[in-house]
């Protein structure tokens, strides 16, 4: 299902179909995480990817949907496919050819089975990985500011637009708030 969904996602000529096939893929990947007893990661996967990122994609696709080119694939797509299979062959050779693929003995229950996955991740995240966690927050902040700045229309466009009498000089016009800033609030929601 994962591979089928992913294949449809990259080959479907209609972008909306691609996005929905990507959604199928992401939800099944969350199922893989549950199979690996990583429940917290599965929940985050569904909330962030299936909830936020896919919604973001669908909004942008609705802006662009009538501007799609007639040709979905690149003209030189056999080159791309063969390059992709070369990459696959290299990875398989490295993994299976070097004896790294030994599976070890049977697994016991996960070490985090006692307290629960979420609690264990939280304890580790706020002690050992506190500094990377702060850096991740700053990266999200930078992404938010950057997206809003990029999404704002330029001054020339602002002058051409009819004034509604409510511009405050330097802020974005209320009627010109772009979809990016609106969608970014959705994007931020799972992080809270």
């Amino acid at each position, binding site marked *: 299902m994962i591979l089928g969904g992913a294949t449809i996602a990259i080959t479907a000529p209609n972008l909306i179909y691609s996005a929905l096939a990507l959604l199928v893929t992401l939800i099944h990947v969350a199922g893989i995480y549950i199979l690996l007893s990583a429940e917290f990661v599965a929940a985050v996967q569904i909330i962030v990817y299936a909830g936020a990122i896919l919604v973001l*994609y669908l909004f942008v696709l609705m802006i662009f949907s009538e501007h799609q080119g007639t040709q979905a694939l690149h003209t030189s797509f056999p080159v791309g496919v063969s390059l992709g299979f070369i990459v696959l062959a290299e990875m398989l050779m490295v993994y299976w050819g070097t004896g790294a*693929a030994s599976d070890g003995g049977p697994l016991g229950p996960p070490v985090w089975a006692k307290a629960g996955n979420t609690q264990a991740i939280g304890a580790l995240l706020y002690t050992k*990985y506190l500094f990377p966690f702060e850096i991740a927050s700053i990266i999200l902040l930078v992404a938010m500011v950057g997206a809003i700045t990029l999404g704002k229309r330029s001054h020339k466009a602002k002058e051409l637009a009819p004034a509604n009498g409510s511009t405050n000089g330097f802020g974005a016009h209320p009627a010109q708030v772009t979809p990016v800033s609106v969608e970014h609030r959705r994007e931020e929601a799972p992080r809270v």
Partner: protein
Amino acid sequence: MVPLSYFVTLSFLLFTIGVIGILIRRNILMVLMAIELILNAVNINLVAFSRFHQSLDGQIFVFFVMTIAAAEVVVGLAIVIVAFRRRATVNVAEFNLMKW
């Protein structure tokens, strides 16, 4: 219990599909989606090794990868919108502003 090599092979295949998607699609939005597929393949790998090495560090890394993916998508889509306003196209082959 499913052996580790199944997860790793699945991750390889998903990664390959993502690479092919980046290379063959003309639409820049599809290129971003294929990057998401690649990041997901890496995440499957990290979680699988985290489970089989009985260590939670891999799942923390998955968390950070998801953070970076979210930031990347937001900034990427903003850039796509700006580029679309300037060039009125979403075809990667026509973004040649930096050619001299």
